[in-house]
């Protein structure tokens, strides 16, 4: 059998797992692994400028491809800098394997230089973690980590690797396990047959159904089944922020995103539905608004691979544990087999009602002579990219506007931090997507607050020539914070201004990128056309937008789903 050191085993195991890209930052505790990487020609490593960005890159690489993202960092601060990234992936169920160095086993517990209990620090935000105390444990730990990260409800897994375990002088027999099984971990994929029958019956007999599709449908690659079911039964479909793209944004049955900044028609339809069929969505507080007033007449059906998501916030009348893809296919097969059909007359009546709500055109906005509106920027982006770009975003108003005004055609096209709401996610995320899809246009829609949280990655872009487009909706303030302060804090704008926003054009140029400043609406489209034509350069488009613009619709706090502010002056009837 081949004899390898612990460090070599790490690299070989990753190779044998099929890993091609890894994101990281070296340091004392992982120097042996980095030396092994240096000698490997199969794994491409990207050196970031801050470990948090490495995790976001791996995370978005995973979100855009469906593969597991992989990160390598050193002990102590290297590891703790990853925590925000890990928490981000955890909240959105993204499969990652994070390898972190550790002080040698004989120093653990002695407060050695750069010692941090990474297993302990990361525990609340990982799906699982391993600490390897011998080199022989490494291949099996890595195999298990990838298996756990990518199956069931995916999530990040941390592997702690003490330095002495990596020692290049000690060689051990190496064999990468082909398969792995854990007696304590067996995710359920297919739905209970009785529940499938009941679900089909309920769906067929519903007069006002809504298909409520979340990120789980994207993770499970269930878009085909969602589309088939929706078209077969003529169901209205709403996507969550995480589910955008799971159902085509321009499909006539798509009623928009739901929730806090969802469309009027989506929130109205939910509230007035008699059946809500949740496919891989978890009734997050940003969706339900006040749970006591949530959809009073609806029967709740809920498919989720994670039993804890079912009946956590909203009681499910008809729970189905399983993969969205498998369960929907089971339902489709049963519908096919029994030739089940719903009553088209009542569904048409339901559509009449929905179309009435749609006619309100809740996403309409007033343009201005003096200011560029953020909505215009996203609509222009859609036009220029023909709706084909991979769009990543940061967190705030720009994120909501991008979600509302860029109708995503397909899954894995919209990459954002939905659960954790991590500012600083967008740029490294765009880089991760671009590495995965070098030939596709990738754009990071960001704000002047968010972009500055990981702006150092412009340097990584330069080093590896990762030509993403950065589209900054610059309102010289923390727009969403300001919006809340204006609406709910008597207009007191406590620390939501950026009094010294840098010159982003000069900043980009300092990193040898191209910066374009846009102040007038007529400059916007040419700037974006140029940005996407310059395929081998990072282009930073800094658009000065109306600093007073708010995001609407917006649900009224403590209200039901259908209670919304529609503009600064208009509100739905209470």
């Amino acid at each position, binding site marked *: 059998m081949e004899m390898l050191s612990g460090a070599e085993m790490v690299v070989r195991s990753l190779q044998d797992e099929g890993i091609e890209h890894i994101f990281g930052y070296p340091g004392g505790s992982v120097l042996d692994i980095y030396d092994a990487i240096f000698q490997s020609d199969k794994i491409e490593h990207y050196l970031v400028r801050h470990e948090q960005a490495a995790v976001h890159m791996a995370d978005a690489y995973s979100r855009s491809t469906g593969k597991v993202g992989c990160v390598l960092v050193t002990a102590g601060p290297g590891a703790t800098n990853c925590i925000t990234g890990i928490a981000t992936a955890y909240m959105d169920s993204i499969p990652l394997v994070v390898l972190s160095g550790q002080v040698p086993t004989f120093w653990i517990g002695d407060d050695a230089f750069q010692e941090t209990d990474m297993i302990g620090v990361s525990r609340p935000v990982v799906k699982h973690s391993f*600490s390897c105390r011998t080199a022989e444990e490494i291949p099996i730990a890595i195999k298990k980590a990838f298996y756990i990260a990518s199956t069931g409800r995916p999530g990040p897994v941390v592997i702690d690797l003490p330095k002495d375990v990596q020692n290049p002088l000690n060689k051990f027999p190496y064999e990468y396990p082909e398969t792995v099984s854990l007696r*304590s971990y067996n995710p359920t994929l297919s739905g209970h047959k009785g529940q499938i029958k009941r679900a089909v019956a309920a769906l067929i007999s519903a007069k006002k159904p809504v298909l409520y599709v979340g990120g789980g449908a994207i993770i499970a690659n269930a878009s085909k089944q969602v589309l088939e079911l929706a078209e077969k039964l003529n169901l209205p479909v709403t996507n969550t922020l995480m589910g955008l793209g799971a159902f085509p944004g321009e499909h006539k049955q798509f009623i928009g995103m739901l929730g806090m900044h969802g469309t009027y028609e989506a929130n109205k339809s939910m509230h007035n539905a008699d059946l809500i069929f949740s496919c891989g969505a978890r009734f997050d507080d940003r969706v339900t608004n006040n749970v006591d007033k949530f959809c009073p007449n609806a029967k709740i059906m809920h498919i989720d691979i994670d039993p*804890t998501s079912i009946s956590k916030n909203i009681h499910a009348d008809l729970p189905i544990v399983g993969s969205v893809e498998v369960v929907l296919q089971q339902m489709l097969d049963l519908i096919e087999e029994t030739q089940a059909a719903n009553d088209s007359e009542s569904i048409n009546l339901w559509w009449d009602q929905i179309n009435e709500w749609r006619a309100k055109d809740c996403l309409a906005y007033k343009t201005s002579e003096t200011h560029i509106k953020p909505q215009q920027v996203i609509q222009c982006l859609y036009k220029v990219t023909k709706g084909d770009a991979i769009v990543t975003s940061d967190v705030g108003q720009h994120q909501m506007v991008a979600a509302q005004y860029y109708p995503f055609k397909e899954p894995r096209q919209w990459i954002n931090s939905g659960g954790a709401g991590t500012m600083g996610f967008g740029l490294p995320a765009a880089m991760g997507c671009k590495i995965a899809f070098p030939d596709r246009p990738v754009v990071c829609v960001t704000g002047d607050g968010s972009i500055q949280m990981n702006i150092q990655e412009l340097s990584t872009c330069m080093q590896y020539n990762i030509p993403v487009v950065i589209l900054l909706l610059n309102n010289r303030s923390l727009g969403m914070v300001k919006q809340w302060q204006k609406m709910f804090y008597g207009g007191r704008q406590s620390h939501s201004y950026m009094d010294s926003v840098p010159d982003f054009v000069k900043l980009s140029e300092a990193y040898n990128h191209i910066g374009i400043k846009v102040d007038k609406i007529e400059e916007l489209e040419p700037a974006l056309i140029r940005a996407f034509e310059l395929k081998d350069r990072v282009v930073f488009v800094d658009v000065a937008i109306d600093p007073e613009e708010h995001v609407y619709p917006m649900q009224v706090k403590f209200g039901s789903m259908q209670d919304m502010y529609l503009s600064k002056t208009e509100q739905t009837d209470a």
Partner: protein
Amino acid sequence: MRRIISVLLENESGALARVVGLFAQRGYNIESLTVSPTNDLTLSRMTITTDVVDNATLEQMMKQLHKLVDVLRVSELTQSANVERELLLIKVRTVGSEAREEVKRTCDIYRGQIVDITQNLYTIQLTGVGSKLDSFVATMDDASEIVEVVRSGVCGIARGDKALRA
């Protein structure tokens, strides 16, 4: 409402921390927790007593426990007939033969065992349900001076055919 949850989990380092962390993180209350390896040394058996406000919380708690990768089985003992026991070790100080007699008598009534003795100190072992131990401690408090008390926390097992096995 008080509930007893049995958990069968991998006997691995960090497994206990994950369970305790879960309870802290989600704001669940732990009244007592006992854990020890089983006859199969690769497995640990844990008994948790908790106070939950409603069944939905209990259901979520059990699901969250089961979601932990190390956990094989979770069951709620209080759902059906069960045996629950707790071990008490108590050290009391007595002066004079009358007081010593009283301690011995009380101990016999409760079917406790005296496991250590010095001139002025008795160490007594007692098993039973929590309320019995409470009552014994209160009685001892009257009969002597309590020096220290150690309680194991609850261990539980289902009656009859029901079993928690890998």
